[in-house]
């Protein structure tokens, strides 16, 4: 397939026609900004992934090995902080969201294109400051708990500033999306004709705008404590270390829905297309995104059941936590019901979407053990928790992202990728993922604490299994990216609508022209009208 005759056609490169640094760096085209976000975030996914491989490699043996315990602590801090702040929070919203919100609602750009470019560049500035702190690497964990983070000699102050900038970018992007979705939908696209990805992005943006300022303020307080010695969190100065945890989780819990909701949006797009069936329970899925966003603000305390927070507070937070499970479970039932009586094909986007459902069910059900007070006391801060959040974040969000990347690759690049390679990569990613992370549930049940550079020898066997799994996972990701990169140049030209989707982005060319649509489409129906309507059964 290397010598595909793509030279015979005069290729229309659409929005990709212009070349050169300035055409990217100063662009106000949401698609180009989206592409820059994709490269940036995936770059950090690779870096943080390599760090994870190093961590796993050290954990092959229980005692000292490879590098010092301090280095291990630095590496897990960087792995967590990069994965969270530089990859998983911006990966779907800022990257795919930027590219596809205007295309899915049928408009020419986001509401504030200049602000959008500004958001990208302060994101980059934030990254620069963050990466600059590597001069004095941090070892606090991505959670920065005080008073350790207020005392350690590492560059917490500089890092806070970097994350402050990244948070600002997040707020501005969210604001931009909210206004875009409210005001710029194509003629005829009422709220209930919006694709579910848009509903998910709307809920996500609301969380970003409302919760990110809190973490910004928290980082400022932390910096003030370190620089001016004002005692907000340090008990030696009259502060309260639990206050920091409350502030931190008041942001960091809602933000897990910033990570997961967009991935759920992608799954809601992909499943109907490949099942050739209307999405089951459209309104329920749409409203459940908003419900998750709302309840998500009220459950931060479930990270603190054993922190020294009062028993009564623990009880209330546990109760509210179980209510997040209801809309989440409902989404899962609705996706599965969408498959019923479909005509399902298993191209790579669908494989990743189904993997999302499969893995997220495990992530969700294991969350019950963490949400229930008595069992959380035992599994909190153990590998059970590590396994749980990797099942939701990697098994969930990252699988959703991979589904989206495969689904929209033809639209974004104008090329098709090699499906055989994509399927091989999928096998490795999904099986490697399970071999890596499933043993961690058992390790956690047996009491192995997280963030342990060295561990008692009795936990070694399962750690070896996990480490070996991580190599298969890594190989799968390498093959997936190699396939993408090779296809960028050599892939066959993509048709406008390779998956026969009904959402608006498939009505324009691949890749889309700079103005997205030669003529703005008029919407007359919802985007999930698959199947034959005269066969509609009464059940």
């Amino acid at each position, binding site marked *: 397939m290397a010598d595909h005759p793509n030279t015979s056609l005069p290729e229309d490169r659409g929005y990709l026609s212009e070349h050169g640094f300035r055409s990217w760096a100063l662009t106000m085209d949401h698609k180009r900004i989206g592409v820059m976000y994709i490269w940036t975030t995936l770059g950090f996914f690779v870096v943080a992934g390599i760090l994870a491989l190093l961590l796993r490699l050290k954990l092959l043996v229980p005692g000292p090995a490879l590098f010092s*315990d301090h280095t291990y*602590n630095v590496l897990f801090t960087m792995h967590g902080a990069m994965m969270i702040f530089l990859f998983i929070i911006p990966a779907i919203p800022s990257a795919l969201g930027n590219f596809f919100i205007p295309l899915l609602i049928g408009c020419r750009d986001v509401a504030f294109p200049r602000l959008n470019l500004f958001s990208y560049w302060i994101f980059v500035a934030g990254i620069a400051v963050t990466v600059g702190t590597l001069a004095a690497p941090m070892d*606090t*964990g991505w959670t920065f*708990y005080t*008073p*350790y983070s207020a005392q*350690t000699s590492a560059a917490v102050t500089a890092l806070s500033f970097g994350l402050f900038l990244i948070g600002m970018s997040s707020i501005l992007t969210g604001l931009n999306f909210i206004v875009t979705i409210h005001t710029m939908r194509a003629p005829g696209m009422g709220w209930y004709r919006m694709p579910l990805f848009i509903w998910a992005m709307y809920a996500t943006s609301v969380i970003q705008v409302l919760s990110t300022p809190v973490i910004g303020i928290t980082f400022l307080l932390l910096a003030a404590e370190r620089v001016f010695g004002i005692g907000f969190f340090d008990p*030696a100065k009259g502060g309260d*270390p639990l206050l920091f945890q409350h502030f931190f989780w008041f942001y960091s819990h809602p933000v897990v829905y910033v990570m997961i909701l967009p991935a759920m949006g992608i799954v809601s797009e992909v499943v109907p297309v490949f099942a*050739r069936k209307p999405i089951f*329970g*459209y*309104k329920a899925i749409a409203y459940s995104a908003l419900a998750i966003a709302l309840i998500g603000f009220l459950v931060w305390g479930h990270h603190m*059941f054993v922190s*020294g927070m009062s*028993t009564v507070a623990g*009880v209330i937070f*546990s109760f509210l936590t*179980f209510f997040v*499970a*209801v809309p989440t479970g409902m989404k899962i039932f*609705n996706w*599965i*019901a969408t*498959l019923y*009586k*479909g*005509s*399902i094909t*298993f191209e790579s986007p669908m494989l990743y979407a*189904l993997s999302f459902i*499969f893995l997220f*069910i*495990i992530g969700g059900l294991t969350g*019950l*053990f963490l*949400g*229930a*007070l008595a*069992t959380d006391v*035992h599994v*909190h*801060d*153990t590998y059970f928790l590590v396994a749980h959040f990797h099942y939701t974040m990697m098994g969930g969000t990252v699988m959703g992202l991979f589904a989206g990347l495969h689904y929209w690759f033809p639209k974004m690049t104008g090329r098709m990728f090699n499906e055989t390679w994509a399927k091989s990569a999928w096998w490795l990613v999904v099986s490697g993922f399970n071999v890596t992370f499933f043993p961690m549930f*058992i390790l956690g*049940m*047996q*009491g192995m*604490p997280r*963030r*342990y*550079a*060295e561990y*008692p020898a009795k936990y070694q066997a399962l750690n070896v299994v996990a480490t070996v799994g991580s190599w298969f996972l890594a190989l799968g990701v390498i093959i997936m990216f190699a396939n993408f990169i090779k296809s960028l140049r050599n892939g066959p030209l993509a048709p406008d609508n390779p998956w026969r989707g009904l959402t608006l982005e498939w009505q324009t060319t691949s890749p889309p022209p700079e103005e997205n649509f030669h003529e703005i489409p008029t919407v007359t129906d919802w985007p999930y009208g698959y*199947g*034959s*309507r005269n*066969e*509609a059964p009464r059940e």
Partner: protein
Amino acid sequence: MPYPTTLKASEVSLASHDVDAVFIFILAIAGFFFVLTQGLLIYFAIRYRKKKGVEEATPYITGNHALEVVWIVIPSLLLVAIFVYGLTVFIKMRTPLPNAAEIQVTASQFTWSFKYPDGRSVANELRLPLGQPVKLIMISRDVIHGFFIPAYRQKQDVLPGSYTYLWLLPKQAGTYDIYCSQYCGTGHSLMRATLIVMPQPQYQAWVAAELQKQQAGAQSPAERGKALFESAGGGGCHSIDGSPKVGPTLKGIFGSRVTLTTGQSVVADEEYLRESLEEPNEQVVQGFQPIMPSFRGSLKQDEIAALIAYMKTLK
């Protein structure tokens, strides 16, 4: 947690039994939904896969209110059941046990120190008599730590500046791990201690022997140094058997030549060891982090001398 192979609640302590019972309860519900959802997912995926070359018309099903109500209401009820059961046991775990013996737990980077009612203080080893309820009164000297006994399913963060509590009721004799579960710095993963549960008569005998040792009084400087080393938790960071921990080993330290982070090499004589206790981060041995706390003021000069005498014996 019950080991996955034997779904039976552990009986080693009061809490372990109750927590495991909740765990098994949730596992049953989660297992049911796991089989249901994954079963349907896989069954539908196989049953309704597209047949080769045939474009089949699919029915236009957009939802079903009755079904959706069912899968909102039934899971909600089960979730409430899980919540209530988890809550009941949690409250029980946090209810003070009557006639509990009080033990003070002090956490510091990277040592656990246990102080018994009779005033004795022991580092990294907690001995409890079987069947005797115990209240741990815990505080940290520096950052947040987490006191975690996996076998007991009990965990509680230990804070600087305020007390937190844990109630234990050992029900089986044996030796159990204690871990620090809240990340606290370089030596976090080595901040481990041992819980030894002994039958009452053996426990009483142990207490009597310890007290006798204490009253024997006249200790040699090296013996006094050994006691100080243990009670101050020196073993958390420094081994005495030659293996490196967070800090260099003390085996054979006296009189040896050590290379510093500056590249200089010095002989570890009395003066070097005294300085290392009072200004520990001035001359750090290569390969280690400058993280040792200063003991200036907290150790008297004769105590420092006793510690050095003890280090001389570690050949």
